[in-house]
């Protein structure tokens, strides 16, 4: 929608109107993807161990094999 409203202002410069539809579709997909990523990061925020620095520091292993 935002894309379409901006279009009239730009019409003097170019005649790219036919390309609006694919651009909008790409933007929509990207928006969908961003929302999806936000949701995943939120979910992972909830399960990440608290105090990253201490947790990582205390993971000390002996060599194996």
């Amino acid at each position, binding site marked *: 929608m935002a894309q379409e409203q901006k279009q009239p202002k730009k019409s003097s410069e170019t005649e790219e109107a036919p390309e609006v539809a694919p651009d909008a579709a790409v933007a929509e997909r990207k928006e969908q993807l961003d929302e999806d990523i936000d949701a995943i990061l939120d979910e992972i925020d909830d*399960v990440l*161990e608290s105090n990253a620095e201490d947790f990582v*520091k205390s*993971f*000390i*292993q002996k060599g194996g094999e």
Partner: protein
Amino acid sequence: MSVRRVMGTEIEYGISVAGQPMANQMVASSQVVNAYASATAKARRARWDFEEESPLRDARGFDMSRQVADPSQLTDEDMGLANVILTNGARLYVDHAHPEYSTPEVTTPLDVVRFEKAGEQVMLDAARRASAVPGAAPLLLYKNNTDNKGASYGAHENYLMRRSTPFADIVKHLTPFFVSRQVVCGAGRVGIGQDGRDDGFQISQRADYFEVEVGLETTLKRPIINTRDEPHADPEKYRRLHVIIGDANLSEVSTYLKVGTTALVLAMIEERFITRDLGLETPVASLRAISHDPTCTELVGLLDGRKLTAVQLQMEYLDLARKYVDETLGDDADTQTRDVLARWESVLTRLESDPMQCERELDWVAKKALLEQYRERDGLAWDDAKLALIDLQYADIRPEKGLYHRLAGRGRIERLLDDVTIEGAMHDPPEDTRAYFRGRCLEKYADNVAAASWDSVIFDLPGRESLQRVPTIDPLRGSRTHVGELIDRCDTAEQLFAALTR
């Protein structure tokens, strides 16, 4: 020949006791293994039989003396550490300071995935049981290979090969393959250098820990090609190629391609099909350089003067493998062989144009994508502890905490098997190798199995003074076809033993 071959994997898990960084990890590992053994063992616990083990046997034809061996190379002496055999034919034990799971012997890449994933569930179950002991602190297990402070532990593969293949051929043709295959099966790591002293992301967990091209060691001076030679089969006919240069993978596709493509290359080496020399000028340095470049554009020098990326080097092997399968099998190629070739090609093509296109299949790409999303959202530099935590927690085997599991649960990582199939493999052995005989004996005659190993099952039978050893020296005998009906029919171990020795 195809992707079919007798093979299996051994995974050492990282272990920590929540809130107790100085806890004794040997003790903690024993608690994990014993908790599982106590909960699942029906009766007496069969012990591991070390009779046929010789970890200092070298593929080049000599034995290292025990006096000069580092104590960490000795694995065959029972140090009183927990060590059990499961009804799926696998071995669950403590190796040094890590709990370890060896899959039973299988014959296809997908079965390696099935039994390795079953091992993750065994470990998960074991850790939960050990943590549930009153007064015990939670035990956390990680399917990774480094603590990022200098210590590394292994994810090994084993492939049965023909003894008649010259070892020099294996070294020559396998080294460039192993140096480059990390772009497909690396697990990804935050931190550069053995102790992670430099900041950044690299493709492999293990690359920085390899220091020589060929050798027997696994704990120091790690070699790209390991020469341990203990076939657990007729040594006149077979060698067991022990591969130590691999990352522990969570992604099923990563494991599937790691094993499937390696099996194809080994078949080509045995058949002397590889006539090109893809030898590298500096294998160890190339291994690290490739790992340190997640754009996959780093060029490495070949002995013939060419410079190729790791993806291009892999494409050389893919091209050979396609020709090899076409020429030897044609339309008779089995489904998994064709599937491995198709997936390998698809992954390499995308790695070449934009590696991030493989985020649904490959561990290192999935991990990198997640890290980049965090970096973008929170403006994190590579030295931020949160990124190191994401790296570590990707490998946490608990479904509620492990980040691989969170991604897979949301359908963001491709699966090859469903949970029911994997759960079944925690208990039931593969049907086409001797693991079937071992697993069924443990399941049905637990009271009378005194010990077992890869190449034997030892019975303690009523009325007999000495233990009775049933050798299983041929990995392909003892399958369901061979002994399924016999075991079904024999209600007791005595009946089975009588039938086998008649």
